[in-house]
C-alpha cells in the first residue's frame, strides 16, 4: 500500500496553500465586506446572445474585411474577400451592434492540457451544426443545412459553396470521405470506432454525393444525429483532431503524413527528423488545432504560436466563413493572446488586476468579492453565468460497492439514499460556498430545460428534514446508536461509517463542502469520512470498485443524451461512479458486469431508445429518465445551477457585444455559444 503516505502529504500541502490564499485574499475580503446575502444573484442577467441568420433574404449584399487583409488583397497577396468567403457565408447578427475591426484579446491559459480554453473562445465554433444561444435548438453552422431521408436512416449534409480552408484550398465532401475512409477507419489511428457514428451499436458510413453534399447512412433510424453534430462530441469539428476525430479533416494537407499516401521510407524519415515515436503520433500532432500552426482550419481564429509554448497566440483566419449582417467578415478582433500561468492564483490575480480583457475559465467563485471590489480599478465588469445542470456538486452512491457488504446493502436501499439526501442543509452550503448564487436541489436540470420533468422534482428528497431522515433510518433497522449518537451497523461491527472520496484543486471545493456535510450528517447519526485523493488515484479506485461515495458535479447533464456520464453509470473512467459493474453491463449488452436493479435498467433502456425516435418522443423519454433519477436518488444533488464552473466572467468595459448572461455548458463551448467572433473593442 503505497497510497497511505500519499494522501496526508497531498492534503497537507493543499491546506497550507489554502491558508496562504485565505491570508492573501483577506485584505481584499475585509475591505469588501462579506458579500451581502443575495447580492450574488443580482449579478445574474438576462440570457441573450447573437443570432444565426438562416434566411437568405437577410443576407448582406456585399462583403467587407479587416484593414490588414484589405491591404494584402491590394498588394495581390490574397484573393478578394468575396472569393475567400464563398457564395454561402455563415451570417451572424451580433448581439448589440455591428462592431469595429482591431485589437488583441488578452487572457491566460494553464499549459498544454488546457486546450479546451482555445476551442471554447476561438474556434468559431467549427461544428457542422451548432446550438442557438439558448443551447436548445440545433441550427446549421459550418454546414448550410442537414436534411433527413428514409425515416432518420439517411442524413444529407449540405456544404457552403466556395467555402475554403485557412490556406485557401476548397472545403468539400472529399474532406469528409478522407476523414472517414483513411483516418476514422484506419485501425492504427482509431482502433475502436466512435459511438457517435453508430446507432444501437451499428456503425454508419459517410459518402460523397457531390462536391458540396455529404451523405451519412445508418442501419437504423438515428434521430439524435443533429444534436450529436452540435454537441461537443467526436464529430464536433477539428477540436478532436488530436485524437483522429472531428468528422472531417483537411485531406490536401494531411495526406503527406498518412501512411497510405506518403511513401513508407519518406514517412519514416519525417518521423525520425521530428523525433516522434511513430507515424501515428506524428499524424495526430499534425492534425492538432492547438498545436500545429500549419494545419488548415475552418475556425474564426487559427493558432500561430502553439499551445506548448509560453504564449498561445491565435490570429484571424483570412478565409473565415463567418460574416456579420452588414457583410463584415468576422472575427472583429485581430488576435488572441493567451499567456501561460501555471498557477490558478496567478490567473485570478491577473484578472483582478485587469490584465485580461475577457476571462471566465479558471475564475474562482470564492474570489467574487475581490473581483467586485476591483471592478473600477481594473476597468472591468463581473457577470455570472450559472449552468443549466442540476449539480455543481453531486454525491454518487457506488451501487456496486461490495468490499463491505453491509455498506453495499445500504447503498442499494432507496430509503437510505433518500434519508441521507434529506440530512443535507443545502442552504448553508449555498451561502457558504456559492455566496448564495446557486440553487439547492436534486440532480435534475434547470426548469426551462426541455427534459426537465417538472418543478416538483427539484425539491424531491432534496430539502432539509432531519426529523424525517432520522425516522426513515430508524425504520430501516439502523435505530441503535453508540454513545456519541452515531448509528451502529446491523452486523454488530461497530459504527456505520461511510467514506466520501473528493478531489482537490477543482472549480468546486468538494473537500470543504464534504466536511460541512459531515457535520450536518452528525444530526442524522451518520459518520462520514472525507478522503481527498489525488486524481489518478481516484480514477484507479473508482474503476477498481473501491469507492463508496464520490463527490463531483454533473455538468453536461443538461444535454443528457450527448453527455450521460453523470446521469447513470456510463463510463469506467470517472472520478466518481454510481457503479463500475453497471458500466460494463451496459456496454457489453449484458454479457459482463452486473445486471442493474429494475429502475436503473429502465432508465438505461429509455436512454438507449431515445436515439432512434423523433424529438417529441425523445423529450418525453428524457423527462422520464430525470423522474427516475430524482425519485431513486442514485445521485444526491447538493447545489446546482450556480456559476462555480467557468461561470464567473470578468470582461473589460471596452469590449462590445457582451451578453449579460450566457448559456454555460461544455456542449455550448461557452463562450463559443455567444460567438466571440462578434466581440469587439469599442475604441
Amino acid at each position, binding site marked *: 500500500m*503505497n*497510497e497511505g503516505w*500519499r494522501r496526508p502529504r497531498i492534503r497537507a500541502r493543499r491546506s*497550507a*496553500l489554502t*491558508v*496562504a490564499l485565505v*491570508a*492573501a*485574499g483577506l*485584505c*481584499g475580503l475585509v475591505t469588501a465586506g462579506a458579500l451581502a446575502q443575495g447580492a450574488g444573484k443580482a449579478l445574474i442577467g438576462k440570457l441573450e446572445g447573437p443570432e444565426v441568420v438562416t434566411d437568405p433574404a437577410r443576407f448582406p449584399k456585399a462583403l467587407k474585411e479587416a484593414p490588414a487583409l484589405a491591404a494584402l488583397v491590394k498588394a495581390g497577396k490574397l484573393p478578394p474577400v468575396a472569393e475567400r468567403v464563398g457564395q454561402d457565408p455563415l451570417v451572424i447578427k451580433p448581439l448589440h451592434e455591428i462592431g469595429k475591426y482591431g485589437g488583441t484579446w488578452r487572457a491566460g491559459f494553464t499549459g*498544454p*492540457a488546457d486546450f*479546451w480554453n482555445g476551442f471554447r473562445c476561438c474556434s468559431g465554433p467549427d461544428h457542422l451544426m451548432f446550438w442557438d444561444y439558448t443551447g436548445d435548438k440545433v441550427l446549421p453552422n459550418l454546414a448550410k443545412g442537414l436534411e433527413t431521408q428514409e425515416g432518420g436512416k439517411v442524413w444529407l449534409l449540405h456544404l457552403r459553396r466556395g467555402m475554403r480552408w485557412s490556406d485557401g484550398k476548397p472545403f468539400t465532401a472529399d474532406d469528409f470521405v478522407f476523414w472517414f475512409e483513411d483516418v476514422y477507419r484506419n485501425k492504427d489511428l*482509431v*482502433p*475502436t470506432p466512435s459511438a457517435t457514428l453508430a446507432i444501437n451499436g451499428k456503425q454508419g458510413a459517410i459518402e460523397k454525393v457531390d462536391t458540396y453534399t455529404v451523405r451519412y447512412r445508418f442501419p437504423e433510424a438515428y434521430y439524435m444525429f443533429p444534436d450529436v453534430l452540435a454537441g*461537443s462530441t467526436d464529430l464536433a469539428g477539428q477540436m478532436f483532431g488530436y485524437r483522429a476525430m472531428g468528422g472531417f479533416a483537411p485531406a490536401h494537407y494531411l495526406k503527406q503524413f498518412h501512411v497510405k499516401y506518403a511513401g513508407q521510407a519518406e514517412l519514416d524519415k519525417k518521423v525520425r527528423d521530428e*523525433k516522434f*515515436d*511513430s507515424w*501515428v*503520433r506524428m499524424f495526430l*500532432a499534425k492534425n492538432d488545432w492547438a*498545436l500545429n500552426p500549419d494545419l488548415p482550419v475552418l475556425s474564426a481564429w487559427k493558432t500561430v504560436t502553439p499551445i*506548448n*509554448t*509560453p*504564449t498561445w*497566440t491565435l490570429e484571424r483566419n483570412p478565409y473565415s466563413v463567418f460574416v456579420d449582417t452588414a457583410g463584415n467578415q468576422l472575427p472583429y478582433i485581430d488576435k488572441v493572446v493567451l*499567456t*501561460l*500561468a*501555471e*498557477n490558478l*492564483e*496567478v490567473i485570478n*490575480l*491577473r484578472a*483582478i*488586476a485587469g*490584465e485580461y480583457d475577457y476571462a471566465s475559465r479558471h475564475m474562482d467563485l470564492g474570489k467574487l468579492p475581490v473581483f467586485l471590489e476591483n471592478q473600477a480599478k481594473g476597468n472591468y465588469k463581473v457577470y455570472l453565468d450559472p449552468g443549466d445542470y442540476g449539480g455543481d456538486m453531486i454525491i454518487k452512491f457506488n451501487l456496486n460497492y461490495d468490499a463491505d457488504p453491509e455498506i453495499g446493502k445500504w447503498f442499494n436501499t432507496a430509503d437510505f439514499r433518500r434519508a441521507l439526501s434529506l440530512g443535507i442543509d443545502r442552504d448553508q452550503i449555498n451561502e457558504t460556498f456559492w455566496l448564495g448564487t446557486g440553487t439547492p436541489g436534486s440532480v435534475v436540470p434547470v426548469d426551462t430545460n426541455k427534459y426537465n420533468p417538472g418543478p416538483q422534482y427539484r425539491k424531491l428528497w432534496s430539502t432539509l428534514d432531519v426529523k424525517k431522515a432520522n425516522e426513515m433510518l430508524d425504520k430501516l433497522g439502523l435505530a441503535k446508536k453508540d454513545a456519541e449518537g452515531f448509528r451502529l451497523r446491523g452486523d454488530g461491527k461497530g459504527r456505520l461509517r461511510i467514506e466520501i472520496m473528493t*478531489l482537490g484543486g*477543482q472549480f468546486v471545493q468538494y473537500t470543504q463542502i464534504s466536511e460541512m456535510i459531515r457535520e450536518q450528517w452528525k444530526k442524522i447519526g451518520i459518520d462520514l469520512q472525507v478522503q481527498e485523493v*489525488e*486524481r*489518478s*488515484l*481516484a*480514477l*484507479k479506485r473508482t474503476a477498481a470498485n473501491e469507492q463508496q461515495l464520490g463527490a463531483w458535479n454533473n455538468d*453536461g447533464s443538461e444535454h443528457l443524451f450527448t453527455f450521460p*456520464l453523470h446521469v447513470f453509470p456510463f463510463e*469506467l*473512467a*470517472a*472520478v466518481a461512479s454510481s457503479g463500475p459493474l453497471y458500466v460494463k453491463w451496459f456496454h457489453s449488452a449484458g454479457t459482463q458486469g452486473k445486471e442493474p436493479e429494475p429502475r436503473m435498467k429502465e432508465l438505461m433502456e429509455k436512454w438507449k431508445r431515445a436515439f432512434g425516435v423523433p424529438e417529441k418522443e425523445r423529450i418525453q423519454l428524457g423527462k422520464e429518465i430525470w423522474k427516475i433519477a430524482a425519485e431513486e436518488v442514485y445521485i444526491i444533488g447538493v447545489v446546482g445551477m450556480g456559476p462555480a*464552473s467557468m461561470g464567473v466572467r470578468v470582461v473589460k468595459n471596452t469590449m462590445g457585444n457582451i451578453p449579460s448572461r450566457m448559456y454555460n455548458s*461544455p456542449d455550448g463551448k461557452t463562450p463559443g455559444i455567444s460567438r466571440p467572433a462578434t466581440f469587439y473593442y469599442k475604441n
Partner: protein
Amino acid sequence: MLTYIGRRAVLAIFTVWAISVLSFAIIQLPPGDYVTSYIAQMASMGSVVTDEEAANLRIQYGLGQPVYVQYFKWMRLIAQGNFGMSMEWRRPVTEVIGERLWLTVVVSVAALVLTWALALPIGIYSAVRQYSVADYLATFVGFIGLAVPNFLLALVLLYLGFVLFNAHIGGLFSPELQDAPWSPAKVWDLLKHLPIPALILGLAGTAQQIRIMRANLLDELRKPYVVTARSKGLPERTVILKYPVRVALNPFASTIGYTLPYIVSGSIIVSLVLGLPTVGPLLLKALIAQDMFLAGTIVLLLGIMTVIGTLISDVLLVWIDPRIRLEET
C-alpha cells in the same frame, strides 16, 4: 590529487547510472500512468476519454510494456541524444527543458548572489558583535525569514505589489515582451522583474546562512589561534577575515553539492506561485501528469548536478582548508 579526482569521476559515472535507474523507477511508483492522469484531467474539464481510447493511447505511448523494457527504450534514445518526447507538451524533452533552463539559472543565480551578499557580512557582523542590538535585529529578522513559508511571502508580495504599485502579476516578462526577440529592452524588462523572485527565493536561504555563519564563526573566534593572532597585534580586520572566517566558510563549500541542482531547478512552489517559467513547476507538473520522459530527464539532470556539485565541493574543501588531507587507503 589528480588520482583522487579521477577516482571520484569514475564513481560519479556509476552514481549517475544508478540515479537514472532510480529516477525511472520512482516515476513508475504512483498508481496509474500518463494516460490515467490524462483521463482525470479531461474529466475535470468536463470531457470524457473512453476505455477504448485509453487502451489505444497506452499502446501508442508504449505504456503497456514492462518497466525495464520502457527503461531500456529510454536509454537507447538517450544514447542517440534524444531524451524522448514529452507526452504532455508533445515536444522533444530537450526543447521543453532547454527553453526554461537558462531562465531558471538566471533567477537562481540572482537569488544565490543575493543570499550570499547579505548572509556573509551580516553573519560575520553578528558573530563579532554578539548580543549587540544589530545582532539581535539580524537574529530576529533571520528567524522570521526562516519561519515564514516562502510561498506565503510570495502570495502576499504579489497581492501587495498589485494593490500598492499596480505591478504586473508574476512571470519574468511583461506580456508585450514575452515573445519578442532578445533586445536591450527585453533584458531590462527581465531585470525589472527579477528582484521580487530573487528576494523571496533568497530570503529563507539568507536567514539560514546567517545563522550558520554566525554559529561557525562564534566557535572559531574563541579558539586560541585567534587570541594569538590578536595578541601579536594584527589589525582586527585581518584577524577576523583571514583566519576564522576562512575556516567558518567550510560549510558553504560543502553545500555546493546541493546548490548546483537548485540552480537548475529553482524552487518549485515559489516559482509556481509567482508564475515563473522555470524548471521547477515543469517538474511538478510532469510528475503529476506522469509525463515519464520529461520527469525522468529532469530528475536525471538534478542527479547529475548533485554529483557534479559534490565533486566540486570535495575539491574545493581540500583547497580552502589545508587541514583536510587526502587519505590514501
